């Protein structure tokens, strides 16, 4: 059992460190104090930085070399993430494109799609967003109602509404899941498309969260026309393509550095008058700290597994449960200790307190995650499904019955 790098990993880490020593000074400030306030300027600077990361082999770490990547494995991605965090510099602007959409195009794209999209995506010239979630479908991704209707000339017209879309406001393309056949059971009638975000009929609207910030967007599609060559994977095989994306999403999130930590939360209250002497506060920070330390070492375990050639299973989703609920509890504690000033508009903890309730619901609620883990990891039987094998077009009327 060794928490340290293998010799090859240590050597790789040293190379990354050297590159960062030489280049970190040019990194833009994209969050927190000193951040570039104007969004356009910030995106432009970040785009340049992504290009630089590619040159250094720190972006597209796991992409095959033939598509401009560094051709490494997930463990090297982890090392890069750790060193970026250590150096206090941002990763690529297009975390979603590089981490999920590009890899999905590599797996399911045509040669032409790969040629056309992968280069600009990797270099940050064309940012990609993910157009999966819908207001009506909730956690049930396969229940999307956005319709893509094929025309006589083979092109498709897409109409519907997507939600919770990160980066939509500066994306060139979106990878969109739509229903092309409503007369088959719901997992079967789906198709994935690559949609230009500047196509006529696409409207983007910022979606403000509890804090008042627009963390996400809504995207409305009104008879948006795309060619037959916009299909990613096969018509009717959209669910398979979506599962690939979700697998890359798990990997991307699993290897991302973790934001909240035991030491940060403890530091927030350590100097508040009376806090350190209060046993109730101590029990609470001790409990929260224990959860977060455990989560960190579970991260180490996952990395060890990746290094051994494994792929993170659904159980690593538990890290999200631990992290979010520890952060919620920490928000409560910090607010109680620091008082209403912790709720101030610009306070980092006030922001966290506002941000977490949305996070708890976004990207699959905790309940769905616990279902998945109970079924896929523990092997518990699924809930009875009323929608199995039923044509999608009939589901609605049943629900309303």
């Amino acid at each position: 059992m060794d928490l340290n790098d293998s010799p090859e990993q240590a050597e790789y880490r040293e190379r990354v460190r050297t590159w960062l020593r030489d280049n970190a000074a040019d990194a833009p400030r994209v969050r927190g104090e000193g951040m570039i306030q104007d969004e356009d300027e910030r995106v432009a600077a970040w785009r340049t930085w992504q290009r630089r990361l590619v040159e250094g082999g720190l972006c597209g770490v796991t992409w095959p070399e033939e598509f401009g990547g560094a051709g490494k494995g997930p463990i090297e991605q982890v090392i890069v993430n750790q060193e970026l965090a250590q150096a206090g510099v941002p990763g690529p602007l297009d975390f979603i494109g590089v981490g999920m959409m590009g890899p999905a195009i590599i797996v399911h794209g045509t040669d032409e799609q790969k040629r056309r999209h992968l280069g600009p995506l990797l270099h940050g010239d064309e940012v990609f967003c993910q157009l999966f979630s819908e207001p009506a479908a909730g956690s049930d991704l396969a229940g999307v109602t956005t319709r893509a209707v094929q025309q006589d000339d083979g092109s498709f017209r897409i109409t519907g509404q997507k939600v919770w879309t990160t980066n939509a406001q500066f994306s060139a393309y979106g990878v969109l899941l739509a229903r092309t056949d409503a007369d088959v059971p719901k997992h079967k009638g789906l198709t994935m498309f690559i949609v230009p975000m500047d196509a006529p009929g696409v409207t983007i609207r910022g979606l403000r969260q509890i804090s008042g910030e627009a963390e996400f967007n809504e995207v409305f599609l009104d008879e948006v026309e795309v060619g037959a060559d916009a299909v990613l994977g096969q018509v009717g095989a959209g669910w398979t393509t979506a599962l690939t994306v979700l697998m890359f999403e798990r990997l991307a999130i699993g290897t991302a550095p973790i934001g909240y930590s035991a030491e940060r939360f403890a530091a927030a209250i350590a100097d508040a008058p009376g806090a350190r002497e209060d046993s109730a506060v101590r029990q609470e920070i001790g409990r929260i700290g224990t959860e977060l330390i455990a989560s960190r070492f579970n991260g180490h375990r996952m990395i060890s597994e990746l290094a051994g050639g494994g792929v993170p299973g659904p159980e690593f989703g538990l890290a999200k449960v631990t992290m979010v609920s520890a952060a919620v509890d920490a928000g409560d504690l910090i607010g109680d200790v620091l008082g209403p000033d912790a709720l101030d508009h610009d306070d980092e903890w006030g922001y966290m307190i506002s941000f977490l309730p949305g996070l708890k619901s976004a990207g699959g609620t905790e309940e769905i995650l616990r279902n998945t883990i109970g079924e896929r990891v523990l092997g518990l039987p699924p809930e009875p499904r009323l929608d199995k094998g039923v044509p999608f077009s009939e589901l609605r009327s049943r629900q309303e019955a």
Partner: protein
Amino acid sequence: MDLSLTDEQEFLRDAARDALRRTDTVAAAREALEDVAVGKVPTLTDLWPTAVEAGWPGLLTSEEHGGAGLGLYDALLVAQEAAAVLAPVPLVSVLPAASILDAAGDEASAAVAGGELRAAWLPVAPPSDREARWTVDPRGGLLRGDAPTATVSGDDVTLDGEVPWAPDAPGADRLVVVGVDADGAPVAALVDAADAGVTVEAVTRYDATRPLGHVRLQGAKGRRIAADADALARAWFVAQAILAAEATGVAGHLLPIAVEYAKERHTFGRAIGSYQAVKHHLVEVLRLTENARALLIYVAWASEHAPDQLPLAAAAARSGAGQALDVATREHISVHGGIGATWEHDAPLYFRRAQLSRRLVGGDADATDRVAGQLLGGVVPA
């Protein structure tokens, strides 16, 4: 044993509901927040005329001193209604003030009860078994501050000190200040908010419907109110009870909305309310809300029949209702999925209410601590 509402109580509650329905207070709460987001002082719907018209400032004031002479439970009914729609009705500041004036038979009692003078009580907590002195909320941290010092000379009282996070202090004409004299005994004084020795720093934190003030008293001149220590302690418990009622009002308001949504919204081919995870959480909200309602009844009963149990009852109500509010507002967001966490939805407004309220006027944790102190001290609840 009859705990159902009297006809008068039902009338009072329904009248409050109707009066508050005249403006869209929830929309106003969101607009006020827009002001805060752009750095402006929020403009709130002024519900003071509504409150005065309905006689709410004088609810607890005896008839001989110019009020309606109703019981504490009646005031709690109004507080529940106001909170349910996030209406900025300053019950938590005016009713403790009015009750101190009433206990003293003070000459200002009628004007405050009638709403001609807008009075705000500055929250000063009576001693507990952990804090042997009269205290005020700290600006931050856990160490409670000293109550203002009161220098008494005949009817004149000079006050020095600071009372942070005083609800509704910015809009008040008069402040009812509790200070302690050189012997540590509490003294109440009526202070003109415009007095040279008074500074009220208006602050808004997170819930724009709750105006707050950091009040600094530097040789502030006031007139003594002849209320004894019991009356001054009672003001604190009245405030706790009102905050408990507000919390209960919100939780009780949100539950049926969440239940309706859980019946209508489908996922994986079933209404989300048919899933145990959702169902059991909503039942937990019901459980906590019913508990909070029961605790308000305890407050009302103690207030009328067993004043020695009022500290326990008010603290338990604050603690239990605070818990209900916390769980109900989080669950409200959660049941509504991602959409419940967006600015346009009402759920975040109630969440903000919960987040701020739990940290005002002692805070929920201080109330829980007082419950412990009372029980460990041998008080037996009825």
